[in-house]
């Protein structure tokens, strides 16, 4: 049935290539954001989006190999390398949320008073409290490592420093079970907080900003890339319709919206 309807659709709306492959990180899918945005985009544009939620590393790899048309990711450093290497075009900010440093309510390292993430990490290291890292090359891990280096410590190889090598949900679960700390994006944390024995201890540090960008894969490098589709998706989520969907997402269920729509802002504006 799929192919039959697809031909009739393409005849009506006439996008040359209807399928758009969106490679994204698991956090956007796990939070449920894409379940709202993608169907709306499909309805509005006539494209069919194949959302592939994978690790950040794999998403970027798929972009590098031309196996995706458009990326929605949150690992600024890796993204910049990706752009510099010429695999992406048209990188735009979509939204942001924040990372939290979370841990057990008892807060054995006493980081609640630390103020900044770096200070909190120093306390964790000093008290040798358990810290669970994603360790999966995700944007979250990249950010975590940046914080460690800002804090001036290197936790790798320490017995209290665990690398889960898993997604945010699983990592939070491990941290909860082990009574340890971890760094999490607020969207994932808020959606699963009820099942966890973790509280948010450090937030609102500007360094903990978590920006999401949309990047179109360079069709000059990979001619098979659906350039028009990628642009259409990027346009949609950075323009009014998409932005309002993002801004409203999660607001009813949680005390705060999970994402802040940022289209058009520049990196520096966010901080």
């Amino acid at each position, binding site marked *: 049935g799929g192919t039959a309807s697809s031909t009739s659709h393409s005849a009506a709306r006439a996008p040359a290539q209807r399928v758009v492959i969106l490679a994204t990180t698991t956090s956007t899918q796990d939070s*449920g954001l894409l379940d709202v945005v993608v169907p709306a985009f499909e309805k509005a544009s006539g494209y069919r989006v194949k959302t*592939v*939620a994978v690790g950040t590393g794999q998403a970027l790899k*798929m972009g590098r*190999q031309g*196996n995706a048309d458009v990326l929605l990711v949150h690992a600024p450093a890796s993204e910049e390398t990706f752009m510099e290497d010429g695999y992406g075009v048209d990188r735009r900010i979509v939204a942001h949320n924040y990372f939290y440093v979370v841990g057990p309510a008892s807060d054995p390292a006493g980081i609640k008073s630390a103020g900044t993430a770096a200070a909190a990490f120093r306390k964790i290291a000093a008290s040798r409290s358990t810290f669970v890292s994603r360790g999966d090359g995700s944007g979250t891990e990249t950010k975590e490592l940046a914080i460690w280096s800002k804090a001036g410590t290197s936790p790798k190889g320490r017995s209290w420093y665990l690398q889960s090598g898993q997604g945010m*949900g699983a990592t939070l679960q491990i941290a909860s079970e082990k009574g340890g700390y971890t760094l999490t994006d607020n969207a994932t944390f808020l959606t*699963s907080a009820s099942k966890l024995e973790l509280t948010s201890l450090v937030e609102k540090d500007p360094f903990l900003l978590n920006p999401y960008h949309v990047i179109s894969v360079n069709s000059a490098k990979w001619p*098979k890339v659906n350039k028009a589709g990628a642009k259409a998706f990027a346009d949609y989520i950075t323009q009014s319709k998409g932005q309002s969907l993002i801004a409203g997402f999660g607001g009813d269920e949680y005390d705060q919206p999970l994402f802040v729509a940022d289209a058009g802002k520049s990196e520096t504006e966010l901080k």
Partner: protein
Amino acid sequence: MDDLVQITLLSLGVSGLATAISLLIGLPLGTWLALSTFRSRGLVLSVVNTGMALPPVVAGLAVAFLLWRSGPLGDLGLIYTPSAIVLAEVVIATPVILGLAAAGIGQLDPRLQLQLQGLGASRWQTIWWLWREARLSLLAALMAGFGSVISEVGAAMMVGGNISGQTRVLTTAIVLDVGRGEFGSAVALAGILLALAFLINGVLTWAQLRKRQH
């Protein structure tokens, strides 16, 4: 609710098709392996049995390499379609069915083959009756093959993409729910999956016992 029905049907369809194809490949090859006596048979058997240990995600990766746009079959546009999942699951289930079928048929009395041929059975008739005689093992092989694909997630994720409404099957939906911390929903989906498997097994077991009252 609609979603659930669609996911369930897709799971069933994809796994069923993959199992059927694996059966079509594995049963003849397994039969041949069981009945032939060439030198390196042990080696081939080991390779096949090793295939049972192929991690689904690796099967998925291999198929993805094939089907990705950058791969040799990229132009077919099969990646992130149910067909891609079927392909990967065939890779997973075939060694299971092949290996177990070879074992089951290999356990038959070798003289049975002679007796059948002596009754005038053609090659295919002979094989058909050997299958009948080994049906207990072959049904177990079928069930193990089906079980291996209906329950696998790595390949379905990798080449299917777990795309809602398109390639989301029960297992990938379960993993998604688990990732979201929605354990209740995950367990419910698992319940559906197991109920399905039970239904199919029940029908097959019943058919097999009916034919073989002690």
